[in-house]
């Protein structure tokens, strides 16, 4: 059952590193833990026969999102923004809520008779995915490009450096009204 | 105009309001004259209505029937019968006189008069509408002008009074809305078979179906409607909006409030609750009589405790509307005719009282009963007029209030013996608070402070005398009004009480 062992390995990696993401006080550490989590998930994808996704996960997430995250962490220059914890007053209720949520979902997972019809993993998914994206899912494909464009424009609106001419006008405070 | 008489009556004030709204604010006098003209039109049409109304039939007359919203069977359906005609006359008359009485308004003239005209349109519409939806729309339309009239031109606690009035009335009317919808879905139009808002169809029990066949549902709907209307009447314990609203409202608005708006509650009961749910009406007879008795006595005792003239008059309205309830609960001809006559008479009498209070308030700038004294010597004409109104309120024979009160008692006595006897105590208490006020304000030694109070003016007299004449004429010979209503009301009571 080497496949099982691999699964457990990846699962352990995912969950443990996920735990570190949550628990680490240092954001940079958390970010690196997230890298391992995502990697673990990619491994699980591979286990599930989703080779394309495994690769995408590795490339896009780890290469893209994480870089973005770390970039942001660096830019905000506060690696340890989680100041000393002042107690468990937030962690405990949050933990309870999270545990309850997990419990609920776990109950659903074990309590449901999932309609397991599929017999085995698909052979190679890339071609099928490619076909899908070019046929049935061509609209979402295009639509996603709009989303990305929107994100780009949005990010630009929000953080683009201001033109020097505008800076002077802005001194008096901006758009604050009596509320 | 003849074939759309009711529409003209209803919408002439709206036209007036639109013209006023379009007029530049500086033409204050012109505004007032336009307002007077816009209320004179319904008044003249009301006279025509009075003359042409067929007194021998219980059916609807002057009907106008058009489809409004086809997909929901909502119709523009106007018409009057003996129940609505007196109310229409009252509305037309009081609105006109109130415009005259408001002549000295000089704050936001344009707004005041256009709102007032809208108010009249709403009242007219309520009394003419025969489509439940239309009725409801008019019913609610009045709220807006009333709210602003109290709130902008009112007394010191106007904000409180205005919102209180608004909240109460709305709370009542939303229950009516639900009852209306329940009716809509469970009443069949006998011709088309579809749902309908047509009140005449709703009154025919043969068209009822669905949940309307369930007794407890009918009771629930009855209670919904009753509370809705009771708030307007106002029936104890829903009355507390009234003293506040009356006291804070400007004079003319108090007149309309007491003279017309209160009638809408009892009108609604007779127009909607009674014919549509006759079984419930009969079943609710005794509680209604008890509430009537409570209103009569409680209102009277509360009035006695007041030191503000206007508040006293306001509580007297609570008391007098109790007679209407008592008469309605009698479920016989005399009682119901007495009740509707009392509605009309209370409208005129209380209007006089409020106008009179307004006259003194304009001069002395307060209404404290204990702050006057001996005005009888200083203002003999005013004293006579006010005393006339007060004695009419006491139910003095020869004045109209007596006739209706007596009819109410005569009607109610066979049905509710003990309750009527208890209620009759109201004629003693009623006299007590009125005379006590008369004594404190007009009799006794003259208060030197008021040596220079000017006598009532010709304009003010012009607003009071016509009502006074009506009160007197109807007190001596009430048939002109009774003739209008009796056929319809007798028919109604036959339908309800068998």
């Amino acid at each position, binding site marked *: 059952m080497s496949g099982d062992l691999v699964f457990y390995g990846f699962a352990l990696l995912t969950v443990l590193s996920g735990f570190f993401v949550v628990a680490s006080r240092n954001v940079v550490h958390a970010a690196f833990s997230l890298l391992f989590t995502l990697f673990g998930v990619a491994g699980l994808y591979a286990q599930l026969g989703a080779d394309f996704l495994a690769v995408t996960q590795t490339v896009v997430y780890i290469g893209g999102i994480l870089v973005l995250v770390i970039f942001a962490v660096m830019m905000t220059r506060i690696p340890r923004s989680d100041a000393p914890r002042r107690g468990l007053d937030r962690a405990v209720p949050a933990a309870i809520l999270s545990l309850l949520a997990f419990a609920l979902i776990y109950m659903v997972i074990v309590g449901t008779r999932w309609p397991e019809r599929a017999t085995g993993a698909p052979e190679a998914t890339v071609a099928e995915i490619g076909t899908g994206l070019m046929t049935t899912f061509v609209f979402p494909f295009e639509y996603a490009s709009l989303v990305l464009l929107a994100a780009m424009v949005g990010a630009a609106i929000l953080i683009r450096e201001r033109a020097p001419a505008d800076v002077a006008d802005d001194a008096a405070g901006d758009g604050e009204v009596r509320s | 105009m003849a074939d759309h008489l009711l529409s003209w009556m209803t919408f002439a004030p709206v036209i007036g309001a639109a013209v006023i709204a379009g007029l530049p604010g500086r033409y204050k006098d012109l505004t007032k004259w336009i307002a007077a003209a816009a209320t004179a039109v319904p008044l003249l049409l009301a006279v025509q209505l009075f003359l042409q109304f067929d007194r021998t039939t219980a059916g609807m007359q002057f009907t106008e029937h058009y489809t409004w919203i086809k997909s929901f069977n909502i119709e523009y359906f106007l018409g009057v019968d003996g129940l609505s005609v007196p109310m229409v006359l009252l509305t037309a008359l009081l609105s006109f006189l109130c415009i005259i009485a408001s002549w000295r308004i000089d704050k936001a003239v344009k707004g005041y008069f256009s709102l007032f005209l809208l108010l009249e349109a709403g009242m007219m519409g309520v009394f003419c509408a025969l489509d439940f939806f239309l009725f409801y729309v008019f019913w609610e339309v009045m709220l807006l002008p009333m709210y602003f009239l109290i709130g902008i031109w009112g007394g010191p606690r106007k904000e409180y009074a205005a919102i209180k009035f608004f909240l109460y009335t709305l709370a009542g009317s939303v229950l009516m809305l639900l009852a209306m919808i329940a009716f809509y879905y469970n009443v069949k139009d006998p011709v088309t078979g579809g749902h309908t808002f047509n009140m005449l169809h709703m009154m025919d029990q043969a068209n009822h179906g669905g949940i309307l066949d369930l007794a407890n549902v009918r009771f629930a709907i009855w209670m919904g409607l009753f509370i809705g209307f009771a708030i307007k009447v106002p029936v104890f314990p829903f009355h507390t909006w009234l003293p506040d609203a009356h006291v804070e409202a400007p004079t003319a608005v108090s007149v309309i409030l007491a003279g017309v708006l209160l009638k809408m509650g009892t009108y609604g009961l007779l127009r909607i609750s009674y014919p549509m749910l006759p079984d419930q009406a009969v079943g609710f007879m005794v509680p209604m009589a008890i509430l009537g008795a409570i209103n009569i006595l409680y209102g009277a005792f509360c009035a006695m405790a007041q030191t503000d003239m206007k508040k006293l008059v306001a509580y007297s309205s609570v008391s007098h509307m109790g007679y209407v309830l008592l008469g309605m609960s009698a479920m016989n001809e005399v009682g119901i005719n007495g009740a509707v006559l009392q509605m009309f008479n209370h409208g005129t009498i209380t209007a006089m009282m409020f106008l009179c209070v307004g006259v003194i308030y304009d001069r002395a700038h307060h209404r404290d009963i204990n702050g006057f004294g001996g005005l009888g010597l200083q203002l003999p004409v005013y004293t006579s007029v006010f005393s006339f109104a007060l004695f009419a309120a006491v139910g003095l024979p020869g004045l109209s209030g007596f006739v209706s009160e007596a009819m109410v008692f005569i009607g109610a006595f066979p049905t509710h013996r003990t309750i009527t006897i208890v209620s009759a105590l109201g004629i003693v208490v009623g006299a007590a608070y009125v005379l006590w006020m008369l004594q404190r304000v007009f*009799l*006794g030694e003259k208060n030197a402070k008021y040596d220079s109070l000017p006598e009532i003016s010709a304009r003010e007299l012009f607003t009071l005398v016509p009502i006074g004449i009506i009160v007197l004429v109807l007190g001596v010979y009430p048939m002109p009004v009774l003739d209008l209503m009796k056929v319809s009301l007798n028919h109604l009571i036959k339908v309800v009480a068998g």
Partner: protein
Amino acid sequence: MSEHAILLTALAILLLPLLSYAVLFFFGKKLPRQGDWLGTGLLGAAWLLAVRIFARFWAAGDPGLRVEGGVRWLDLGRFTADAGILVDGMTAIMLVVVTTVSLLVHLFSIGYMHGDRRYERFFAFLGFFTFSMLGIVLSNSLLFLYVFWELVGLASYLLIGFFFHKPSAAAANKKAFLTNRVGDFGFFLGILIFFTAYGTFNYFELFAAAHLDPLSGGLLTLAGVGLFMGCVGKSAQAPLHIWLPDAMEGPTPVSALIHAATMVAAGVYMVARLLPLFDPDALLVVAYVGAITAFLGATIAVVKTDIKKSLAYSTISQLGYMVMAMGVGVASAGMFHLWTHAFFKALLFLGSGSVIHAVHTQEMPLMGGLRRKMPITFWTFLIATLAISGVPFLSGFYSKDAILAGALAFGMTKTHYVPFLLALAAAGLTAFYMFRMVFLTFLGKPRDEERHHHAHESPWTMTVPLVALAVLAVVSSGWRGPTDGWFSRFVAPYDMARIVEEAPGAPHAAETHAVPAAAHDAHDEHALPQEPHGGPAHAEPATEGTTHEAPAHGEAAHGEAAHGDAHDAHVRHQAHITAMVLSILVAGLGILVSWLTYVRGRISAPAVLARLPRVHHVLQNMYFFDEFYAATVYRFTLWFSWLNGAFDRLVIDGIVNGMGYLTRVLSWFAGLADRYVVDGLVNGVGAAIQGAGEGFRRVQTGRVQSYLAYACFSVLLLVFVFRAL
């Protein structure tokens, strides 16, 4: 004079004073002499017409004759009510009383009210009063009786408060109106009961219906007592008499007209008119109330020093006589006393008015010795005093004597002697206090020289009425009793058989009945329909009233009555003589004691009073009725109204405002939820885990996350709740 003419004449009599009122009220100020001549003239015309009707009925000589006519006033289909005029003998008498006294009072007022700033208003009100009073007299239905009943109340209110700038007057008129309203409450209920039972307001239709189909016992008594409450109020019977003395705040002519001669007698008239509607139990109440009032009034009059107040109590006392007469079954004697009393009491008041006009005070201790200064006033006053005291050959003697006789007979047949004894005592007291009044006012030495010096006889407009009334006080009785003199041509017990026959069922055509004289034995009072009925006649429980079903029983009662006739007549005759003798004796005694006390000084009034301090105290304070009411009814009413007002403000409004407040509180909580509960919840859960009281202290706000936590919590809650469902 045809029936039609009689009705038209009656209508004219009714409307002439109204015309006077309308013209004077609106245009009086603009007329020459402010229109006093107009009011008086119109009243004179009315008087002439009244005399004409009087003559007509004198000629007819039939007390059962009546003329009725009316118009439909209300018509609702099944319910109708008519406005109608009824003229019969009793009406004719009352018309003459009212118009005569009113005319003379008008005349008197020309002098008395001269120079008042509301002179024309006074005449207008007098006209209005006369109109209303005539309305009471002429109405043929309970409804319109009530209408005019209230209108005289208003007239009385207006006239008592004529000098309304005096606070005492302003209080008195309110008191009068309200006290009357209390009575009217009962009156109205009585009307309601009768209308509900028989469906008509018309007197004679009611009589017929009630005769054929009486209401079952309790209800009939209740209705009768209800009607009588109207009388108690209007005729100032105990315990509602308290308004009348205060009503003396009005100008004296008003006191003479309204509060002595006419309006206060309306109650008596009403009971007499409606007698067939009273059952024996109700009449017993009437008799006792009347007798008590007669005695009460007389005792208080003894100690009063204010001449008008004293006369007012005298009036109360005399009204008590009349009412008692109704109760003891001598209604015509009561009416007769009403007739005679109207003149001599009006005379007394006008005389007192003349005195007051001269000396400008009402206090008898400040008068004295006015005989020479005001001879006409003195002599006329004396005549009236003799009349009221029951001195033979004056009118009062005959009427009072008849009543006392009736009371005695009543006592003998029913073994209720109390009314007679009280009435007899009152007769003696009447003679005493009336002569006390004469002595104190006109004889002896002037006790206030200043006032005496300025006093002078009144002008002719005032003295002419005095003289006229004095003449009437002497002659009005015709020197015969009510049942054996001219009066019996006008007033006699109702003939029920005839009334039933003329009831709407029977044809109404024959108005001018030629009634066989034999049908009316002048001495026979028995035809008063209820009187012969024994005590237990109406023993059935009061149910609906219309469901009376005991024909056999009714016949038995009638038979019993017939049997009792001869015995009663005998008793009556005996009683008559006894009563006459006794009344003369007590009157003489009263005069004698009065003479001894106030002229000869043999008896010292202060000394007597000093020996009876309690009695004096009670009398001086009029048996504490006012105090009693002040402590109970008034206080309770005011307290109750205060309570209601407060209840309204605090509780009812409070509940509503409370709901509004609750809404606000709720919204505040919701706001809290928005702001804190989110955190508090999170913290609260934490606190619950860590131990109570730890969480809220360390409030950590991380808003967005709190929102998320709250949302998360709600979701889980929802899921688990729905799972449980």
